[in-house]
């Protein structure tokens, strides 16, 4: 059990710079979702099932979804602006 706890902590510690150093938002959404799943795994291993459920639903599903929706809306706005500008 000790080994599992240390491994999950190290995985989270290695994944956090991975999320930060992905500069482009679209791949960063995928790494953020994976980081959320790693955090949820760590919460399970440290005997916190309630928090792990919360982290999976929010950090691995809702937060990347909202970011993707915001990116889609911005891309659509930029395309419309380009079309109006080129007319």
């Amino acid at each position, binding site marked *: 059990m000790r080994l599992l706890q240390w491994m999950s902590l190290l995985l989270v510690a290695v994944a956090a710079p991975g999320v930060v150093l992905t500069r482009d938002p679209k791949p960063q959404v995928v790494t953020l979702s994976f980081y959320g799943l790693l955090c949820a795994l760590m919460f399970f291993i440290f005997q916190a099932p309630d928090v792990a459920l919360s982290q999976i639903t*929010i950090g691995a599903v809702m937060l990347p979804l909202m970011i993707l929706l915001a990116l889609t809306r911005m891309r659509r706005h930029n395309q419309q602006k380009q079309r109006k500008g080129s007319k």
Partner: protein
Amino acid sequence: MNLRARTTLFLVSAAALAVIFVLAFLDLPPMGDYRGPYGYVVTQVAVYERHATDVVNAINYDYRAFDTLGEEFILFAAVLGVLLLFRPDDKKGHKRNSNAQEQDELPVSDALRISTQAIMGLMIVFGFYIATHGQLTPGSGFQGGVILASAPILLYLAGNVGAFEKITSSALVKVAECGGAGGYAIIGISALLAGTHFLTNFVPLGTTGDLFSSGTIAVISVCVGVEVTGGFVQLTQIYLRKIVEAELRKKS
């Protein structure tokens, strides 16, 4: 200041902050050596006092229910803020897609359509299960509400844009969100009317382990689930509104 100067300044101050962190954390007890008295007291007492088996939810919805009331209103205020930021700024107002039919579909691959429509029913049942079993198992109204709120998104992924628009812009979603938030406050006020303090667990507690046990914890959990579902469905609808309108206009 430009990026290089900012980065250098940050690295210097981050080094100082790291030293402060290390010195502060060395004063904490080592991990695994939990000394605080409150955790021991609550785990001895919570099951007998509140007839709830999940102590974390008993703390959230009973011992510290006032903090959870504030947290739910944070969610309410955030949805209100996003609604205000995205209000339509043309004079005609938001054209409601009242002629959105449920047969309006986008060309989506068969695998995606079948798998999302198959999973949707399972997710709705699972969300209801988690939201109503707040006092017994891990997971309470909040987690169940978020699971329920991601079910309409599966509809959009399956290409069924008309049904997505009809479900998410209906008045029931708004009523659910406001009703859930208000219901939490009303439960607290009815404790006042019953003669005790605000948000006391004044309903009969039932037997431990039953579904209808632990008094107001179960009711508050369901209220929070309803509010969170309404809030997150509205959030996704606001972001997807322009895109759904454009796609429905292209079809007609």
